[in-house]
């Protein structure tokens, strides 16, 4: 098999929407001189693996676990500027912290209501069981955007404010009208998948951890083919390595296309936008 045939095997056959990408300024060894450079390097590396569109959110360059409202605002301005560089590629999400619920809802109003960001990102400041998330979720429902909530189930112990999949299920039950993307399928594992079976307003994204065999297949079997979406968590992970979890899965092509594109388009209300 020559290299072009091999490359064709590991490339998707249709468009790909990656729901979880960070600017290079947030993670890793990348020396980025400008927002423009950040945007175009992500676009270039994504294209090499077949990624068409990206939901992008910054956690602020130093990634503080409990960011201030000012840091969130700066992070959000960064990804808005990335969208200005390539509006056909980037769908920015608004990063807020439930430690400051009032400021968070004001920032969501600015970014989603005003700037038309595509969703809201929550990380590790507070667990999803915290009541500080409630006004954020209510605002997400009012503005009709999904919330992407980080979650992991770490053998080595979660951070104090880091959600487990059970926490995300609790959030989903408290806010049944909200559309929730739970990040990190491979961080949640078999136990985490099970926590989401009875919460139909949650989809799981395929990132988090290594490209372990069979995890996407189990997620589809337990949650259904419409509750799994592709994401890379780039630059922490490689676009192609994470795509391989879906492309290499033992699943029908129609299901793979839904994971890589259709499900995210539906959740983001981008129907018809290819």
């Amino acid at each position, binding site marked *: *098999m020559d*290299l072009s*045939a*091999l*490359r064709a*095997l*590991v*490339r998707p056959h249709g468009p790909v929407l990656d729901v979880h990408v960070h600017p*290079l300024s947030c993670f*890793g*060894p*990348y020396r980025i001189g400008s927002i423009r450079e950040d945007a175009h390097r992500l676009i270039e*590396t994504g294209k*090499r*693996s077949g990624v068409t569109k990206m939901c992008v959110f910054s956690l602020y360059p130093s990634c503080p676990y409990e960011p201030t409202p000012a840091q969130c605002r700066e992070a959000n301005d960064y990804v808005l500027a990335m969208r200005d560089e390539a509006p056909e590629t980037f769908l920015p999400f608004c990063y807020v912290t439930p430690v400051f619920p009032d400021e968070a809802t004001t920032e969501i109003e600015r970014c989603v209501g005003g700037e038309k960001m595509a969703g809201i990102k929550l990380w590790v400041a507070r667990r999803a069981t915290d009541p500080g998330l409630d006004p954020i979720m209510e605002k997400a429902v009012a503005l009709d955007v999904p919330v992407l909530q980080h979650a*992991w189930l*770490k*053998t*080595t112990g979660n951070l104090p404010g880091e959600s487990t999949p059970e926490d995300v299920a609790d959030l989903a039950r408290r806010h049944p009208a909200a559309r929730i993307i739970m990040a990190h399928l*491979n*961080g949640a*594992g078999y136990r985490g998948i099970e926590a989401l079976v009875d919460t139909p307003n949650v989809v799981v994204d395929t990132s988090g*951890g*290594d*490209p*372990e*065999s*069979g995890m996407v297949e*189990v997620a589809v079997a337990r949650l259904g083919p419409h509750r799994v979406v592709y994401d890379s968590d*780039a*630059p*922490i*992970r*490689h*676009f*192609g*390595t*994470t*795509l*391989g*979890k879906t*492309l*290499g*899965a033992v699943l029908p092509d129609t299901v793979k296309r839904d994971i890589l594109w259709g499900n995210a388009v539906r959740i983001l209300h981008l129907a018809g936008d290819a």
Partner: protein
Amino acid sequence: MITDVCAWTGTWNTLDAPGDVDSVRAGLRVYGVERIFLSPLAAAWRPNPHIDNQRVYEAAGRYPNIRAVPVLDPTLSGWERELDRAVRHAATPMVRILPAYGGYTPDDLDVFCAAIGKTRLALAVQVRMEDPRRQHPLAQVPDVRVEKIADLAQRHPDLTTVIAGASTAALRNLRDKLCTLPNLYADVSQADGLDALVTLVDAEITHKLLFGSHTPLFVTASAVARVVNDLNDKDATVILSENAARIFRV
């Protein structure tokens, strides 16, 4: 011809991965992997990992494209016999050790390494099998420090030493040792991250990198993608096949 220097057979405690020899072989063949260095997964958890080596010798006997890579435990009585067995199998290119699972460190291995250095075999030292955050809570195994493996290679210049399962950052940090120690190599079976292979090629260690997939624990397509999506034909070919052909004379 693509050579995968890090493939396994058997079952694993935390994953439902199809690890029988025929499934592993067929799965790798889909992606053009035609030469498979195969080790037994069960060896990680056995008090006597040598018992499981029979499986990979049998697989190598059945399929010419499989090369048995037995797991040795240098703290186990009789490792000399197991090493001799590996030497007598003409198609066996190297032996593998899992120090973290055996409860020893690369610091303790000078007699063992000196013995392998007198043979034609290489030594693969496994840094990790799975992310410690994803391990079973009652079976937590830390990573092996890659610096210790480099030190081992430095003390045993006649021994071809392969770092197996190290992260991109660990390999980048080890760049100077990989450049200066002619007997030290690394597989890319767990080198993840955006532009992972590009950064290693830019670090001018292309000639020290070997393709590994960590199949069946990891998805083969993922391992292939990070090499072929980002690298030009020349660099990809060096990592996928040429380095292994040169180092192992296969």
